[in-house]
């Protein structure tokens, strides 16, 4: 099977620091892949290279067989990769609904002129977007909060809202950067169901996560980074017994 995303020999340095060093991995269509590693291993940098926030020094990112190199972030979203941010980046002063409408933007067409003339097509599109935004809010369980201001949501709900915004772009692949960060146990349980529900919609998921319980339960395969290099890849069961991973990441003295 052809992978939906192929990361090839990706390298990125900041000044003298090699943040990502010759990383290669594939993501199969419909899978849930975890990117794990100790702090500073370069996980978020890999995400930023995939989503176009950074440009790599070397290597390629192939999505659906096409190279994403040099494309601006919004074009990459249009191609079908949506993301959430490690440090939550919502439109804090806008409503929950408007935050999701931001995701709908790239699937809408009407421009400034159509808006001023309020053409029938523009009105129809606007209504469809509202419907989709509400449906995504329902999907992540935030429909009742639609009128609230984003900054008033709890930390966990802000993470869910970011996921709803990403899903509203109709992605083929979502890139979740520490989705369980700041969530309590119950919220994390619900997140696991949500990630599986995303997969059931036919959307491929890559996630960075420090919560090993979540990673081991939800991911079909894992990629382990340390100091910017890939040290292992495989199923959660394989990774858990890989001596290099245990040494580098889980600690020498495994429980």
């Amino acid at each position, binding site marked *: 099977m052809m992978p939906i995303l192929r990361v090839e020999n990706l390298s990125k340095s900041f000044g003298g620091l090699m943040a990502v060093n010759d990383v290669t991995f594939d993501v199969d269509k419909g899978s849930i892949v975890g990117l794990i590693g100790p702090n500073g291993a370069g996980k978020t940098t890999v995400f930023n290279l995939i989503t176009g926030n950074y440009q790599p020094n070397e290597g390629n990112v192939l999505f659906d067989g096409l190279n994403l190199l040099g494309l601006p972030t919004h074009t990459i979203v249009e191609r079908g990769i949506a993301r959430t941010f490690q440090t939550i980046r919502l*439109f804090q002063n806008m409503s929950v609904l408007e935050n999701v409408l*931001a995701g709908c933007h790239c699937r809408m067409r009407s421009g400034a002129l159509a808006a001023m003339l309020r053409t029938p097509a523009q009105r129809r599109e606007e*209504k469809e977007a509202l*419907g989709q935004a509400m449906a995504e809010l329902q999907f992540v369980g935030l429909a009742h909060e639609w009128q609230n201001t984003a900054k008033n949501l709890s930390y966990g709900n802000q993470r869910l809202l970011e996921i709803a915004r990403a899903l509203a772009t109709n992605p083929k692949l979502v890139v979740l950067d520490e989705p369980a960060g700041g969530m309590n146990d119950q919220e994390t349980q619900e997140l696991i169901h949500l990630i599986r529900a995303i997969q059931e919609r036919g959307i491929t998921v890559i996630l960075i996560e420090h919560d090993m319980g979540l990673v081991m339960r939800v991911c079909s395969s894992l990629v382990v980074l340390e100091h910017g290099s890939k040290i292992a890849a495989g199923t959660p069961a394989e990774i858990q017994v890989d001596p290099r991973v245990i040494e580098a990441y889980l600690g020498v003295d495994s429980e």
Partner: protein
Amino acid sequence: MKSTKYISIGFALLMASCPLFLDAYWTDVMNNVGIYAILALSLNVILGHAGLFHMGHAAFYAIGAYTTAILNITYGVPVLWLIVPSGILAGLFALIVARPIIHLRGDYLLIVTIGIVEITRIALINNIFDITGGANGIFGISRPSVFGFKLTKPDHFFYLIWGFAAVTIFFLIRLEHSRFGRALHFIKEDEVAAGGSGINVARHKLIAFVIGAVWAGMCGTIYASKMTIIAPESFSFAESVILFTIVILGGSGSIPGVILGAFLLVGLPELFRGLAEYRMLVFGAAMVLMMIFRNQGLLPPRPKKYSVEDLNPMGGAQ
């Protein structure tokens, strides 16, 4: 919101009846307020909605006014017809000058836009292409006429200016409550998140610039027809600063706020004419206090309303 609707209708009726009880002098003051209100509303698209620090708006206004003056005097085109080419030319000018600077942020953009308005003014003074009439400007622009009725008195211009202001408000409200208006708001809130949500940041900023410039250019036509004489000093950096202040003081991104700002900054000084030079002192002090205690402006924008009741709750998504 019912109350806002009544306030808007009341304001419109009051404005429409203004010339009945105002003398020629005060009608002219209202005309000036109207022109500044239109200009500030056009700047509001760029500064208020997109959050771009643009302090060179008078340059676009100048392009519109000079286009009107030159085409009217050289080719005898009726003044009000020139509203379209003036708007288009100002928009094209904005497209050309804003394109290379659109990625600049905050204070850097501000300084470049000051450069734009200064270069424009100096070019006009230096009689660029031998068509701008140098420091003296251009005089003898013909009076506008509507269906054969020639506008000459302040009353007539009152309805022209405020009529155009009403059209402006009508379109800009629609723009604000659309995909495009929301995109500008997202960009203002967080550019990185906007890009990450699939919004083409540079493109939307550029379109905001062009729309603001087109409107300022059209307002230039109205100004030229009202004054019949235009000169470079009417389009100075100081004018740009006044427009900038109207938007910030009234409420960045808020259409009612910007209109209120125009009344306060252009109308109020006329009320205090008796205080002579002290009025500027009072004004300056008021502004300092405002920025300390109410830095979001007098009437900050209110959250947008959406109606989701009539939607099929699961419509859209799979």
